[in-house]
């Protein structure tokens, strides 16, 4: 996890959960130094909270394509 760390609030469920899995795997594998472990642990807890929040508060989002989005002049050649 050397890439930029995003605040958990900006992560989608899939991203947050994937990172959580990754962190657990890291901790279970070759144990990182203590300070690093502590950071990972705290991050993991935050990710878990984020995931639970998302599951609890999710509302299905619905978007309907308009006609102009359905039609595409370039690819709609054969009618």
């Amino acid at each position, binding site marked *: 996890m050397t890439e930029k760390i995003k605040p958990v609030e900006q992560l989608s469920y899939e991203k947050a959960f994937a990172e*959580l899995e990754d962190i657990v795997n890291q901790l279970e594998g070759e*144990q990182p130094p*203590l300070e690093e*472990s502590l950071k990972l642990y705290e991050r*993991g807890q935050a990710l878990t909270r984020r995931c639970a929040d998302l599951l609890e508060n999710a509302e299905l989002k*619905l978007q309907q394509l308009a006609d102009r989005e*359905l039609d595409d002049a370039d*690819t709609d050649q054969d009618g």
Partner: protein
Amino acid sequence: MLQADLFAAHPPSALTVTDLTRYIREVLEEDPVLMNVRVTGEVSNLSRPRSGHIYFTLKDAGAALRCVIWRSNAARIPHDLQDGMAMEAHGSIGVYEVSGQYQLYVRSVQPAGEGRLYQEFLRLKAKLEAEGLFDPQLKQPIPEQPHKIGVVTSTNAAALQDMLNTLQNRYPLVEVVLAPASVQGAAAPPEIVRAIRALNRRDDIDVILVARGGGSLEDLWCFNDERVVRAIAASAIPVITGVGHETDFTLSDFAADLRAPTPTAAAVEATPDVRDLYEILQGSLYRLQYTFQSILETHTDRLQTVYNRLERVSPIYQIHSDQQRLDELEQRSTRALRHILNLQRTQSQSLSQRLGALNPQAVLQRGYAIVSLDDGSLVRSIQQVQAGDTVHIQLSDGKIDARTLENKRNVQV
């Protein structure tokens, strides 16, 4: 065999009606096409006499055909068969010699159109199959946790609401992008194709559901349309079909990456269940905590070990060691001091006893006496006293003043 040679051998001459009719019958009944024929027309003059056989006429605008269903086949005939229905009959042509009528001996009958549609279905299926459109190797995996689901269906159908309810229930994290399309009638195929393509032009759709609620065979027919089937097969995004009911299979189902029996089932196939996700999340949290705990313990143990080693080599350790010696010495000195004190106490007691024994009063009580002169000096020897001298004899309980009569020296042994 045919009685053609009969005619060849004899020049044309009058035949009996029976001979001719029999000849016609043989010609017709030996014909390979007429032995196994499908014919469509409108049912009329339907009659079901008590014999159990069924008679009717199939007709269209230009012709009529007598039809017979023997009782042995009648059981397989739809009960609702009635005049005016457009039916497709399957059977063989024969001749009823008595009335000189050719007629269709019907083996089975079904609503017209169905059979033709089915033939078309089989033909197209074979063709597309040969092209490899249904190849299992081409099936794309369905993503486990989709972010956005494309839905191709009619906006005003119950199927859409069913799917949305199911998605909200199972996996409300998902976003639905609805690409509306008619799912019935002639307009349906091009609209479905357009919707599938529109979703494919986006780069954010993880899976597409192509769905329609239950209906008649004709209602569902657009999902057997070659254009629709090809569009599904060509979709770069995985497609799940949910068309009709359990028992309905369309060519779209074969081309899809996954076939679900109903629209609701398609929504289920496309999404994980939020309850399972909770459980998985719980498991991850447990692993996180457990692992971190054990990491902490490992580090604590390591620290303890190093600290122990440090202590052993540190001045503190020496100081503690000295402290211990000091404590030991202190204890020993205390013990020694106590010993000395005890000893002195014992000595002083014995001295006191001895002192007691030396008390003159005690000696006097044992019967001894102290003799003194007038000046108070003690008489220790007879030479200090002459006959006639006054002496004072001190006893334990009083004093005697006495006069000396004689003094004799003790005889030395």
